[in-house]
């Protein structure tokens, strides 16, 4: 990338109310971290609800959790971790002026994110077919509690598990969709050559957001899929 000596006065990306690019970048960074803090509190309410009911209905929840497809869930976890790798590579590419690599990694992130959503869709469809969607058509009869082959799970308590499953993974999926939107925009901007070693804040901030959504999933996967599984 030619001319890395752009001065503050001439940098077209500098907004008028900032004194210099560094201040702008620091503000964006702090803003994104603070925003992610609010997202932690947002998901936090759900995690709290989860903890309360898991403690109260551990056996029933173990039975419900076991009906989730752990292979698909683990695959999704791997997909997201890989996508975080491509994000890191994209940020590095932006910082070292490697436009093709940047666009390539952004696209790879998009593909992996979409794959995640696709696999989630398959899981949801399966849950629908098995009547595990809470509501009038919910059924969960005669499912034994792991480790207690003589005891059936309480369907009402299992229904609460699935309610939280859908709300938590649904909210996560919504955040993934927003993330995909952000990365489509980043790809377009990268293709237009807007990112330079001096100015790649959007890529970094988008990356932070993506990592956060990934970390949420890394908590969701064991909490939802692995409650009481035995080899």
């Amino acid at each position, binding site marked *: 990338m030619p001319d890395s000596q752009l001065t503050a006065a001439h940098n077209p990306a500098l907004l008028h109310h900032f004194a210099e690019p560094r201040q702008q970048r620091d503000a964006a960074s702090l803003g994104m971290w603070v925003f992610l803090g609010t997202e932690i509190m947002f998901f936090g309410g759900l995690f709290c609800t989860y903890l309360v009911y898991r403690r109260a209905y551990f056996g029933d929840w173990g039975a419900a959790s076991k009906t989730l497809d752990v292979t698909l869930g683990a695959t999704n976890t791997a997909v997201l971790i890989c996508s975080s790798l491509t994000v890191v590579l994209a940020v590095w590419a932006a910082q070292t002026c490697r436009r093709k690599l940047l666009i390539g990694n952004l696209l790879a992130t998009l593909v992996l994110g979409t794959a995640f959503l696709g696999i989630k869709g398959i899981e949801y469809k399966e849950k629908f077919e098995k009547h595990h969607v809470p509501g009038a058509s919910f059924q969960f009869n005669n499912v034994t509690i792991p480790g207690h082959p003589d005891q059936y799970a*309480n369907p009402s308590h299992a229904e609460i598990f699935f309610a939280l499953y859908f709300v938590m993974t649904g909210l996560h999926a919504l955040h993934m969709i927003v993330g995909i939107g952000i990365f489509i925009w980043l790809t377009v901007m990268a293709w237009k050559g807007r990112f330079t070693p001096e100015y790649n804040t959007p890529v970094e901030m988008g990356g932070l957001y993506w990592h956060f959504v990934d970390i949420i999933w890394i908590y969701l996967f064991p909490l939802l899929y692995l409650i009481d599984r035995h080899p």
Partner: protein
Amino acid sequence: MFDNFPLWPQRASTIAGNVDALYIFLLIVSGLMTLLIFVCVVFFAAKFRHRPGVQAEPIEGSTPLELTWSIIPMGVFLVIFFWGAVVYFQERTPPHDATEVYVVAKQWMWKLEHAEGQREINELHVPVGRDVKMIMTSQDAIHSFYVPAFRIKQDVLPGRYTVAWFRATKPGTYHLFCAEYCGTQHSGMIGSVVVMEPAQYEAWMSGGSTGSLSAGGEKVFAELGCATCHRPDAQGRGPNLQGLFGKTVQLEDGRTVTADENYIRESILDPGAKVVKGFKPVMPTFQGIVSEEQLNALVAYVKSLSSARPGNAMAAGSTSTPAKASAQGSQVQ
């Protein structure tokens, strides 16, 4: 004070005086603090009123003063906290052998049932000087049992029992309010607590009882086939309920719980939640099969199987007879 313009609620329970004493203390403390601030503000505003040529004195602050007016209030607050906590403990600790009344709240009425079997709607008759404990649940939304003259209030929740107690000290009729918003007729969910002299109360009691609550519970116990598994010998598929109430129970998963009202209730509605050690989880659920009143009756019956329960319906003084008892039992709401 004036009859139609009261400025202070009546005091009709043993706890009311304690609550009022703390309240008056707080009034005095708050009054003094308000007066202090008011006097300072007015005095400073007047004395240091802007005068031409007189400058304000630049004062930074004073750490000793800051510490003083942080520590002294904190000390006063701790006193209030302790006093309030003591009163609260009294409010939330029913005496051991209180007379029990089962309360079912629903939109928008209070249904009460004495252990001896009398049922009341929106009214509670009690004798003066006796400890009364209310075991309460709701059929629908959250309600709250509030008797201002007794200074007691307790939310009434669906799905579990909550408890409140009082000992009335003055005969009279006192407001009973629902204090948790519950829908259209929330402000119509009003009743009264009628406190009577003991003799009058006995007279009231002996008219119109249809059998004690626990006798009714015994009937439900038989009708629903509970006796098949819960036998008084050790042979049944279910735990022996004799002497169970109030004891600690070892569960299959290692936990230990106390067999209180909520435990009995939960075991009927969700038997798999707490399986007793040494028993198999074969009890069916009765959710949707028993009404709240039947649940209350069953709980009262199980309590009656523990001999050290003088407040229960099996004590002498019950007017139930087998003929009358047959009319009771499977009452639906």
